[in-house]
């Protein structure tokens, strides 16, 4: 697991393959942890994505010389892996329900199709984010880190080397764009 440090360093230098390498490393581990937690089936209010990423980080940090800076980078790159995990889970959840013989009826009483079921919302955001990456990659990255990675403004600002004010504006702009995309 020593390569995490190296991969992070190379990714920071803009090495695209290192970013992919990190994903390949983190994704299966995150998945394993998520499964393990579900298998334990305990009543655990903290069982959320942030906590999953934390556990994953601890796993990797044990065998590597990760600096505090690396920790932040790790979370930032893990956001993409977390996004995949969440999107997979959403797809699985939706498939299960649709296969489960649920009848499809109209039930929007006005509050609108704007917000779908959790699964649908996640899949919609994911799809819109793919488009947003083409329009403005940084906005998409901010959304990924915040929405899927559970990072706060300050962490994101530090990771991207911009002010937290800028992060907040990016976030607002991204929300406007996504609101339009998700409504259409």
């Amino acid at each position: 697991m020593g390569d995490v440090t190296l991969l992070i360093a190379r990714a920071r230098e803009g090495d695209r393959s290192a970013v992919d390498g990190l994903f390949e490393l983190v994704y299966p581990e995150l998945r394993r942890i998520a499964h393990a937690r579900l298998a334990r089936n305990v009543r655990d209010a903290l069982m959320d994505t942030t906590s999953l990423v934390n556990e994953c980080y601890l796993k990797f940090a044990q065998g590597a010389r990760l600096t505090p800076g690396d920790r932040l980078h790790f979370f930032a790159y893990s956001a993409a892996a977390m996004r995949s995990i969440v999107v997979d889970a959403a797809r699985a959840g939706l498939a299960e329900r649709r296969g489960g013989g649920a009848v499809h009826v109209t039930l929007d009483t006005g509050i609108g199709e704007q917000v779908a079921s959790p699964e649908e919302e996640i899949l919609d955001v994911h799809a819109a984010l793919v488009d947003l990456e083409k329009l403005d990659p940084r906005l998409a990255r901010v959304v990924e880190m915040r929405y899927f990675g559970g990072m706060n403004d300050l962490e994101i600002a530090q990771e991207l080397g911009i002010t937290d004010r800028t992060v907040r504006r990016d976030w607002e702009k991204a929300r406007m764009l996504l609101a339009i995309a998700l409504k259409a």
Partner: protein
Amino acid sequence: MNAFNELASDWPGLSVLLDEALSLPASERAAWLASLSGERARFSTSLRRLMDAGERADGGAFLQELPALRGLDEMAGPGEPEADAKVGPYRLISELGRGGMGTVWLAERVDGQPRRRVALKMPRVAWGGFLAERLLRERDILASLEHPHIARLYDAGMDAFGRPYLAMEFVEGLPIDQYVRTHALPMRERLGLVLQVCDAVAHAHARLVVHRDLKPGNVLVTAEGQVRLLDFGIAKLIEDDFAAETALTRASGRALSLDHASPEQIRGEPLGTASDIYSLGVLSYELLAGTRPYRLKRGSAAELEEAIAHVDPPRPSDQAEVALTRKQLRGDLDAILAIALKKNPAQRYATVEALADDIRRHLRGLPVLARPESQLYRAGRFVARHRIWVGALATAFLALTVGLGMALWQTGVALHNEQVARQAAEREAAVKLLLVETLSVAVTADPAKLREPDGFGQLLYAKFEEFEQRFKDQPGQWLDLLEVVSTRLPAYGDYECSLIVGQRYLALLKKTKADDARVLRAYLSNARAFSKLQRSDKAAVLLREALELVPDTPATHGERVAVATELGLASTALDRQGEVPKILAVSAGRGDGTLGK
């Protein structure tokens, strides 16, 4: 296909301008947007769209956090409802569907009450903590909607986790548009379905409940061809949850499905019955012509909003694909839908009943009021002056709205010549105008007032004062209004106001030498108000006066009997039962015709 294609070329410029907007306090952004000039003004449409979307998004917790996923943290709270789970007094049987609003389950009562099957709706609590509270407050009103074409709301409440639920009648049926297509219904039967919908909406409007989200998905048709409207008043219930802030109200208003939204709904204005009439127009258009009123090139929400607000829809007959349908729509139905779809609410049919009546006229081959060239349209000056707003008001409206038909209408039955008919029509219209205006004021401005014990009476009285000025030159109509107000107010528990108006009415009647029966009715109404106020003594004085003033003739006999009966009651209340036989003898036209002292 990229969701942001339209914005892509302008994005760098837009992004910079958005940074500028976002650095301003939210309250100053609209002014900033309006002040853009020169090259920057080019971006304002897109900017507005983005900023509106942002505001809309603020209405919910849009993207604020990753939604909880089943399988990831379902153990943390009550989680997703599942079969066999108990929600309040209901046991969930199977999920019927889910969507933005929440989930709907087929459920049954398990607390010893009759095992009724219901559709149990569980709105997302995330939409606002006040929802549950409002739900409880409003459920009685919604539950009072008892109509064969309205799915009943049986119950509403909160379960042990504080999640609100609504128990509705479980309806098995097809959305009305699908039903019409599946059965390839001929025009007449489609109109029959529309009339059923109108009937249901009119019933709700009479109880001051506005639907606000009429669309095919909310109108089911059962296998027996019976219409059932779903979710009456619920859109408003949920929407009101946001009423604290204008922006939020707009946000939630916008969240309504746009296709059937009225122009005022698009503008985020308070909605009255006229908005439902518009939506009914869109729905009817769709069912009759087979297509929605607005055909869009791009199909974007913004384009649709623009069309609803500013573009007159094409005639349905021009839109229909089948030649026969085009022929059937041309003329009457084109005109009827055009009125229902007027941008200005005041130019639409004033009531759903009026819309339904025009459809019925069309079905019977009578001239419809929607067509300016029709004889009926030209018949009354009042009608001409106030156009459809008043002219098309149906007689049935009052009966529905206020619950009682009135003598006024009966006087219209035996009319012989056109002039008398016109006068009666004008009076009728004036009365309706007062009621309609009072109701629409109430519905849009002060719905809470209506729930106060004498709230409607107060509103009616306030409006009535204003009408006194308006009808200065129309004494006949003014008298009718006085009559209506004085006889209607008691129904709302407001006897004092009723008496104030009633005494003016009576004095004016006597002065204008109105017909005797009418005078007697005025006496009677005032006396009843006195009785209700525990002033049987005053009631008795009035009633005696009435019997002495008006002689017994065939024309007045019925009224005299009523007055005498009332007097008998008052005497009894005053412990003067001894007078009763004499009173009754007088009323029956026996004896010497006087009551003595």
